């Protein structure tokens, strides 16, 4: 393994890769150095934005608003770099890898932070940007395992559509969970009459509206993503294999949960009871789908085998 390659791949994959094994799934035979060069600065800029957001509201005044404006500009820069990183992965490396998936979801969350950066909603970036940094950081250190069956199954134009939609959906659900947490913080502080500094948060009705929007976005894009995955499977997999895949089955269950939550919230204009339960259970299921199921259960398109 060359020096550049070692720099990109996490240390614990070096040994297996040095033996020439592809089991660790590190991008084979391509130059990864540019990806590291872009990936680490992305993390650095997200970190700088996080630091500026954290310092922003404390002092108030022009300095605080300058720092928030700088933090937003840093987020824009990080998102632009991040896009370059993902394009680099798609062209030079392996976009359908486990590590790339985490990073892609992080990018979606950063885009959500930028999309919401107006008025008091802009303070949501204080929560979304660190989340994006953590997700991207995880993507940088995880083994770059890839969906094992892909090489055998050959390419299909539906695959990038499936990936993009599923990542967008996951980003929507992660953003929805963050907004729900912020909403609960505001709600509890109002109930506890801890009123100092509350002006730095969006109003409850705005948080409920954004939460339902993010939920709806996730539900629709995940439905389309699963459908696009089905199209890919019909091109590439044996008949019936797609629905027999446990990952697909569990994804549909997660989708059903979120869809139920979405319609419950819509019915109550965003004021359905126990939003944290709806969101927390969905997020836990999502984590299991992405962390547990991918490595515990075998299937056609699990990252772990």
């Amino acid at each position: 393994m060359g020096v550049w390659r070692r720099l990109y791949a996490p240390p614990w994959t070096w040994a297996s890769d040095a033996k020439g094994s592809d089991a660790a799934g590190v991008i084979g035979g391509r130059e990864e150095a540019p990806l590291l060069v872009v990936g680490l600065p992305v993390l650095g800029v997200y970190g700088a934005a996080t630091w500026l957001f954290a310092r922003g509201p404390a002092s108030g005044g022009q300095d605080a608003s300058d720092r928030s404006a700088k933090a937003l500009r840093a987020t824009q820069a990080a998102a632009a770099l991040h896009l370059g990183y993902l394009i680099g992965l798609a062209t030079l490396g392996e976009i359908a890898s486990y590590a790339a998936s985490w990073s892609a979801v992080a990018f979606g969350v950063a885009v959500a932070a930028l999309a919401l950066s107006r008025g008091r909603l802009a303070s949501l970036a204080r929560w979304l940007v660190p989340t994006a940094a953590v997700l991207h950081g995880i993507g940088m250190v995880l083994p770059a395992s890839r969906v094992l069956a892909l090489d055998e199954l050959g390419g299909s134009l539906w695959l990038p559509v499936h990936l993009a939609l599923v990542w967008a959906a996951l980003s929507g659900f992660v953003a929805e969970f963050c907004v729900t947490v912020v909403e609960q913080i505001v709600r509890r502080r109002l109930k506890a009459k801890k009123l100092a500094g509350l002006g730095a948060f969006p109003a409850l009705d705005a948080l409920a509206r954004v939460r339902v929007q993010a939920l709806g976005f996730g539900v629709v894009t995940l439905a389309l993503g699963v459908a696009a995955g089905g199209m890919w499977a019909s091109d590439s997999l044996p008949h019936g294999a797609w629905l027999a895949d446990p990952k697909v089955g569990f994804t549909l269950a997660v989708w059903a949960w979120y869809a139920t939550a979405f319609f419950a919230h819509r019915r109550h204009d965003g004021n359905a009871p126990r939003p944290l339960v709806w969101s927390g259970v969905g997020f836990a299921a999502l984590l299991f789908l992405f962390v547990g199921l991918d490595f515990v259960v075998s299937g056609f398109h699990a990252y772990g085998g």
Partner: protein
Amino acid sequence: MAAEDALVAIGLSHHTAPVDVRERLALDADGVRRELDALVAGGVAREALVVSTCNRVELYAVPGQDGVERLREHWSVRPAGGRRSLDPYLYAHQGVDAVRHLFRVASSLDSLVVGEPQILGQVKDAVKLASGVGTLGAVLNRLTQRTLWVAKQVRTRTDIGKSTVGVGNAGVHLAEQLFTTLEGRRAMLVGTGEMGRQVAAAMVHAGVSELVVANRTFERAVELASRYAGTPIQLDRVPDYLSGVDIVIVATGASSPVLRVPEVKAALKARRGAPQFLVDLSVPRNVDPQVDSLSSAFLFNIDDLRQVTQAGMDAREAASQVAERFVAQEADRFARRLAGLGVNEHIGDVVRIADQLRQEEIDRSIRVLSQLDEDGREALDAMTRALVKKLLHRPLGKVRDAVGRGNDALAEAILSAWDDPEGGDAGEDG
């Protein structure tokens, strides 16, 4: 030459004079125009600006030949009411203190409610008036432009105008934690106590679209509702209207709760979980505190509102300290520029005196050197001009440097060399 001579501020404000004195002196726009005209036309001031609001009447002026005392006399002869003289209520600032005072006034640091935004508009209006009358000259033009800039910087660089003061605004501030905007929201005022009125008025001002007013004495409800184009109801009909309003302000003198858990619970059910903001301003409390345990009900009492206003006042205090430092710094900077402006006039006077002396000497010499032709005269003229210029170049350069470093005494000392030994300064001599 010093800034102290160039500018003076004389006036009275809520800090020094009671309202009955202030109202006697207050001027409307026409009054201000007449005053400005009288000051400049009468030679009391060379430049003048009058700021007249309900809390202050102030004159900013570049004094005329008779100086500051004449300006003070001009104002203090006005009656303060009865046999009182205006003198005890007047304050006067000169030079950098006058600059700082105007900066503080426009930045709302000298206001009754520090941070209130109206004063800046009032100063702008005063500047427009003076500009229209033509009483702003080189000094006041620069000062007023700088003042507006400083005031704007204070508002944008500090939180002086952002924090919440006053019970009414505190109510709005809390409601805006639930609702992004109050526009289109419906509110209900239960009881017509003073604080309830204040909060309701602030809510309407913030955009509440409809106000329902409930009161035990129906006539008072009708009277208050008519003021805001609202709906008056009897007190016992409150539960019927409860589900239709987003904001409930309770301020009655009742000794037992007017709103209890079952009524609010029923209203929230009808609202399908939509949050409701309730403020109980009564002592003893008129909304059962248990209402706050309902997940969609957010109940606040008078102590919570005080918490908001106190935090607002603390924030303004902190912001005003930052603003004071900025204003003082800018005032010093402007005063130095003002001194530079004054010194330029003096330097001009010196140059004129020197040129006049040169011309007198040439005229005297021409009589002796009558054989000089036109070319010879021109050469003599050019040579003497160059000589005067070179002789003045170094000392006047030192004067400018001294003013730039704030060393007015040195500048004065150098320029005094050209003072008329008979009295008066160089300019008047020239």
